[in-house]
């Protein structure tokens, strides 16, 4: 098991290098010169552009730039932003905590509500409750997040007056509730559907029949035998979803004015701040890698037949 984890961790290295190289070259290939853009519509100054590029090492060939970036990264240096002249590490340090709070909130909400809804509707498949949940989840899947965002803003801030329309303090969990729920809505629907299908199917499985025949209490049958086995597809989905929740929140973050990773990467992309984009994307890649490792480890917890030796 220890060896398995070590092997997986080692495998991350080529994935990490490959993905950063890919993103780095993509940023390099994008049209539009970020240094010339410093001058807006006004006349760019060739001498200064050359000086700034030289200072940031942007006049080197691509491979050399990438090498410098990578060696810097291993020394904890994420580079410097071109326009603001702030270290990228500082920019990331500001954006990530907000996003992590938002993601954790959304994630917990997805898991708790999604699994609960899915389990109940699976247990009572094709009953009235199941039908209602089906309609509800289909609705969530089909509504774009910005519609839901503005709708929530209208309902909870203007009609009910419970909250401010945007997040004033990103450390206040209560204020993050609205964006987190909007963010979680789509995943919630998927988790509910997955759990429901899986539970309904496993309900007919032999081992459940055996468990019931053994005379185990219903609580134990559902809670341990059924749920544990039904969660495998859900965990798979959640593992990949956590990355999407973190980086894909551009729209939701915009509506609620949360300055998280999604917005930061979007803005950096617009301003062609290569080092910022690559830095954030790298961290998201790491989150993905770690999450998928955790998912694989969780398989063994959920299903005793799976072992890593």
């Amino acid at each position: 098991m220890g060896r398995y984890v070590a092997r997986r961790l080692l495998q991350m290295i080529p994935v990490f290098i490959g993905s950063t190289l890919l993103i780095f070259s993509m940023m390099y290939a994008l049209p539009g010169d970020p240094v010339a853009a410093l001058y807006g519509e006004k006349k760019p100054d060739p001498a200064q552009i050359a000086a700034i590029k030289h200072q940031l090492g942007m006049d080197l060939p691509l491979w050399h730039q990438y090498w410098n970036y990578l060696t810097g990264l291993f020394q904890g240096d994420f580079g410097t932003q071109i326009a603001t002249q702030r270290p990228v590490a500082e920019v990331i340090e500001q954006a990530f905590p907000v996003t992590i709070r938002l993601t954790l909130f959304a994630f917990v909400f997805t898991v708790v509500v999604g699994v609960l809804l899915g389990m109940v509707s699976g247990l009572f498949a094709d009953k009235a409750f199941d039908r209602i949940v089906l309609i509800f989840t289909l609705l969530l899947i089909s509504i774009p997040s910005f519609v839901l965002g503005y709708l929530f803003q209208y309902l909870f801030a203007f009609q009910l007056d419970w909250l401010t329309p945007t997040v004033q303090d990103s450390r206040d969990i209560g204020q993050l509730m609205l964006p987190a729920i909007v963010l979680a809505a789509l995943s919630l629907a998927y988790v509910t559907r997955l759990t429901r299908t899986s539970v309904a199917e496993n309900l007919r499985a032999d081992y459940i029949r055996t468990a019931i025949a053994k005379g185990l209490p219903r609580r134990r049958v559902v809670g341990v035998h059924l749920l544990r086995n039904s969660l495998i597809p859900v965990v798979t989905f959640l593992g990949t979803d956590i990355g999407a929740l973190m980086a894909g929140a551009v729209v939701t973050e915009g509506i609620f004015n949360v300055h998280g990773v999604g917005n930061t990467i979007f803005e950096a992309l617009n301003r062609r701040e290569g080092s910022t984009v690559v830095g954030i994307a790298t961290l998201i890649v790491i989150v993905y890698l770690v999450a998928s490792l955790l998912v694989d480890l969780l398989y063994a917890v959920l299903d005793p037949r799976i072992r890593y030796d």
Partner: protein
Amino acid sequence: MRGAKTMQWSALAAAVALAATACGGSDGDGGSAAGKPAGYVSMFNGEPQHPLMPSNTNEKFGGYVIDALFTGLVGYDAKGGLTNMNAESVDTKDNKTWTVKLKKGWTFHDGTDVTAESYVKAWNWMANVKNKQANSYWFGDIKGYEDVHPEKGDPKKDEMSGLKVVDDQTFTIELSEPVPYFEYKLGYKTFTPLPESFYKDPKGFGQKPVGNGPYEFQKWTHNKLIQVKAVDSYKGSNKAKNKGIQFKNYSKLESAYQDALSGNLDLVDGVGPKDLPKRKADFGDRALDVPYAGTQSIVPAFYSKPFKDVDPKVIQGLSMAIDRKTITKTVLQGTRIPSKGFTPPQVKGYQKLDTDVLSYNPKKAKQYIEDGGGIPGNKIWIQYNADGGHKEWVTAVCNSITKATGVKCVGDSKPDFQTDLEARQADKVKGTYRGGWLADYPLNINFMQDLYKTGASTNYGRFSDKKVDELFTKGDHADSLDASVEDYQAAEKELLKKMPAIPLWDYAANIVHGENIDGVKVGFDGNVLITDITVK
């Protein structure tokens, strides 16, 4: 089963570790905006793109803060006239040597005096190529600029020979050649003084600037807000009528609008397309549309296929084919005002042109294009950046042209402004491009010289005309400011015949503000005059 147990624990441990790192990092963002002190005004803004340096700020978000913190020698009044700010007087006899006398008793926010030296030393630093300031070209008129800012290589000197300190309150500026309107340029935000403390740590200064303006810097929480406090002892005429300003960072106009609507924000100086139709219903007379000195136009690229060696009559025809009135009213929701010339009315030197080239007349448009020999291929393109909300009006303008004249017109969308600009700089515009110009200083010259002079820096259409150049040159060598403005007025009439661009409309600032503030006025540059805002 035992294997599964250990697995459980390690998975749990890993999950806890992940969560723990998540929590550990959570102090980094500085958290809340922590409410607003009494008497302060909170307004929409964004993260400044550069450190807060007068000589490195050329965009709106940073510009607001710089204008709050620094006061230069001169300023402009509502009609585009000049007023003295920190300067007691700015005099010249030959438009070449300018003598500046400072008002006495002005101080920086750190308590040190504002002296002639504070200006001269700062300008020398700002102009120096080594310091890589985006606005350094503004000092290009001053004698000795090439020494500190050569086109290539290191500077030869640290000081421009044209700047001389006479005494504590007086200094002279010698230009390399006479510029009759130089005093107007002095009102631009880069011509500010810097305190002595700046030179110890220029980089730190950009995060925590010390100015001499109506407001004093308080704090900058990146991506959240910038807060400035009114200075009680400020001596200028634009002393703040409120206690301070909170510039709050919003990534979207729409969310700021919602905050203003619910009373969490006092002022938003822009309205997103989604809210434009309902702004009057939501805010009543607290939704303002104030015209300012900014124009939008379609600029033909005179090297492109459709416009190479074109007869100006054809461009006049295209201009007459655009129904400006209807488009500004419908598609643009009344946020723009149809142009009446190459300069907007808010600048000195604006004149009423006796012309029908800028009014809609489909019949004449068609006739003009035919008379002028038509357009090769009978098709034109309008290049624009897709990230600026231009698509709608470009489509409307194209429809208007095609309907009136039969000339095919297509929008040529570039993904963002950088790509758009790159195509312009590399002479790769297919037909025309969307031109926008905001006044640097409220003078008609500013709307012509940089745009239409042969070889001018932002003349991306590569327009070149002898007569126009002659008139510009005459204006640049005029004896006085008024004579210079008049020469440029003559040039504007000539431009109407040569059509280096098709003026479309002038900008208006769309402002919505809350019930508890008053006195919201807009300057020539479209920025709200924040010092005039009063809190009820």
